[in-house]
């Protein structure tokens, strides 16, 4: 036994060391940094100024940070409902044996292949444009005044515009995960249900949904993680300077570490670290709640 232990140590050392260096050390350092005032993110520890909980109290008392948390919550909740709903709907339709399945799947997945920068520019400068936008043209064609005149990009509606554009890009990805989950379910269940006289909708409700529990959990977890790190689309929807409708905690973190927009503003990597810690706590909380709601399914199929 003793000899085996040595081997265990020898073989585990590299992995454990790697884990410590690549994961544990940055985590510990970030948590530590969040209690200090640090001007440059790579400043030596000797330059750090201990400030206790000041970074956290400042965050909670800053309107802009609260706005950013509210934005990310809205993206997570509303975006999550829209994306998960559409994704599972498309997945169910695609796996129901319709013709040209692969073509539709490719079309729905397409936005994931296109660069987010190109997509966002298309939405922002073309689709939502108040002068020659796609929605404006459609509204005029259908004589829907409200659609033709709708100002997607003004400060009151920019968030809606961002949400529509972002969800458009995300549906395909989550649809694929759902579709693979549905395909795993054996056809004999559906055949038996059909013989018993169950309708398509009943089959979806009583066979597909319960058996997708694990996949749904995966999807929600991944959605939460990508929402927490929401950065690129926010940046693309408010070029140069950030915007109250699109700012997210990660953008706020970036501004505190690297400076905001074109002006020279105060930098504090400690606040950035505190934002990171808070976001991690949020993700862990969501993960725990998800785990509680979707208990590991005891159904085997």
């Amino acid at each position, binding site marked *: 036994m*003793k*000899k*085996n232990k*040595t*081997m265990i140590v*020898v*073989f585990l*050392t*590299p992995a454990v*060391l*790697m884990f410590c*260096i*690549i994961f544990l*050390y*940055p985590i510990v350092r970030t948590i530590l940094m969040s209690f200090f005032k640090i001007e*440059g*993110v*790579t*400043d*030596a520890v000797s330059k750090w100024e201990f400030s206790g909980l000041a970074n956290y109290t400042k965050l909670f008392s*800053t*309107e*802009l*940070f609260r*706005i950013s948390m509210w934005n990310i919550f809205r993206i997570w909740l509303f975006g999550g409902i829209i994306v998960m709903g559409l994704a599972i709907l498309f997945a169910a339709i695609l796996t129901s044996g319709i013709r040209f399945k692969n073509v539709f799947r490719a079309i729905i997945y397409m936005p994931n292949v296109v660069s987010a920068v190109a997509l966002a520019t298309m939405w*922002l*400068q073309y689709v*939502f*444009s*108040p*002068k020659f936008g796609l929605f404006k043209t459609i509204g005029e064609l259908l004589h829907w005044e409200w659609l033709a005149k709708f*100002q*997607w*990009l*003004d*400060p*009151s509606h*920019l968030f809606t515009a961002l949400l529509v554009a972002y969800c458009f890009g995300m549906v395909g990805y989550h649809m694929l995960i759902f579709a693979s989950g549905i395909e795993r379910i054996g056809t004999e269940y559906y055949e038996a249900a059909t013989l018993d006289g169950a309708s398509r909708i009943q089959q979806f409700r009583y066979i597909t949904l319960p058996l997708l529990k694990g996949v749904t959990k995966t999807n929600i977890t991944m959605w939460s993680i990508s929402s927490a790190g929401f950065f690129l689309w926010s940046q693309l*929807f*408010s*070029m*140069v*300077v*950030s*915007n*109250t*409708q699109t*700012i997210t905690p990660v953008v706020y973190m970036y*501004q*505190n570490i*690297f*400076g*905001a*927009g*074109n*002006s*020279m*503003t*105060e*930098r504090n990597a400690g606040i950035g670290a505190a934002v990171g810690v808070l976001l991690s706590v949020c993700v862990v909380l969501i993960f725990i709640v998800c785990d509680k709601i979707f208990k590991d399914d005891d159904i085997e199929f």
Partner: protein
Amino acid sequence: MYKIYKNRAYSAKRWLDKTKTFGEMVIIMKTTNSAGLRDKNSRIPVNFEQIGGKSMKKKLLSSLLCVAMMAATLTGCGGSGDSTPASDGTAAPAEEAPAEEAPAEEEAPAEDAAAEEAPAASDGTLVYWSMWDAAEPQAQAIKQSIEAFTAETGIAVDVQFKGRTGIREGLQPALDAGTNIDLFDEDIDRVNSTWGSYLLDLEELAKANDYESTANAGLMAACREVGGGTLKSIPYQPNVFAYFYNVAIFEEAGVTAVPTTWDEFLDTCQKIKDAGYTPITNDNAYISSMFGYHMSRLIGEPATEEVVKNGDWDNEAVLKTAQAYEELASKGYFSETIESNQWPAGQNTELAMGTAAMYLNGSWLPNEVKDIAGEDFQWGCFSYPAVEGGVDGTEASNYGAQVFAINAKSTMPEEAFQLITYLTKGEADALLSEMSVGIPADSANAEWPALLSNVKPVMDSLSTRYPWGAGAEANADMTPIIIENFTKLCGGSLDAQGFVDALKAAGN
């Protein structure tokens, strides 16, 4: 991790060296293992026991090898990671470098093992981290001039076009990690304030080279001012932030002189509106400057900055500024879509397309929209008008430049300064100005690009320098809130009092 990063070699050839050692190590390990297995000629578990228990040497050896292999993997990872960003920036210039030099460079360190640990600087190549993206006209002009510089002086230059975000995010960590960077560039304020402690004092080099005889005195003074009284950076690509307008619309509307006071400005707007054009447009990216400029005209820039930083929204000037803009909005002087203008929609689809007349922006604007505006678009420029009872007049504006700076740890400061001088004077400066439709830095280059000919009188008339946005963006926690509410004010969905109330509600 820090240490490993610090010791990393940055060029691809060095990475190759590392991988070579890594490969050898794997081979060594394989032979040891298979030899061990064959010697004992028994079942594998038994052999493992022997390695672990009886043979202390082997145990030590295997643990060492594991750790060594891990270290090699790590260095391997780091190497490839570093070479990737470099490849998009440096690959192109390297290919075009004189063919004889490249192979010679590659072989030299490989022969001498000791050279691997020596700083990369010793090979006599200047390393320049540039804020431009390789595709931009500025980068192309600089690249062309650097090739001429190398041909003339024999000093090789490794220019890496990092782009604005690349420099902003990457420069300080790289300098902290001891990366060999001789010179870099960015905005005058960022270089001097954010990276001030990394800069070499250039007073003596400038004096020794008689640099200032043909430099823009105002900008040199600005560099000294932001450098804490001493010269730490050399300006180039000067810019000025003022009202840019479409001369054709002004002529059609019968505006004969540019407005210098607020009343004249209102009058100009009315004439343009009567002629059937949109007087003013803007985008989310620059809109806060109108707020900053107006308030700075009223109470001066330092006071404006104080108001923004301390959240003193009860200050009279805030309401006065808001009222002025409420008036502009109520008279219909702003673009109908001003609230929806997400940069670059306003500058591209309104100003450059000829439906709007004026836009408060930087002198880089004509270059940005030149493909849309067309060749016959005539640009005019005037400084933000003075307001009644205000502290500042048209002599005050945000102007500045990109600046070059030398790393205080550079081993080749003279050569770096030589390159800076080369790039900011004479032909190279003229080339940059021509290719990027920018303002020349060399005062001997009196000829400005035709598109900017009307900017020269404005630039020459300025004596007070505002920082970016005239202080409107001095508080990052407030900037988006100011922009949101100011945009609504310009669009008419918020009145002056509503604007002030909204800012007060946000606190900070």
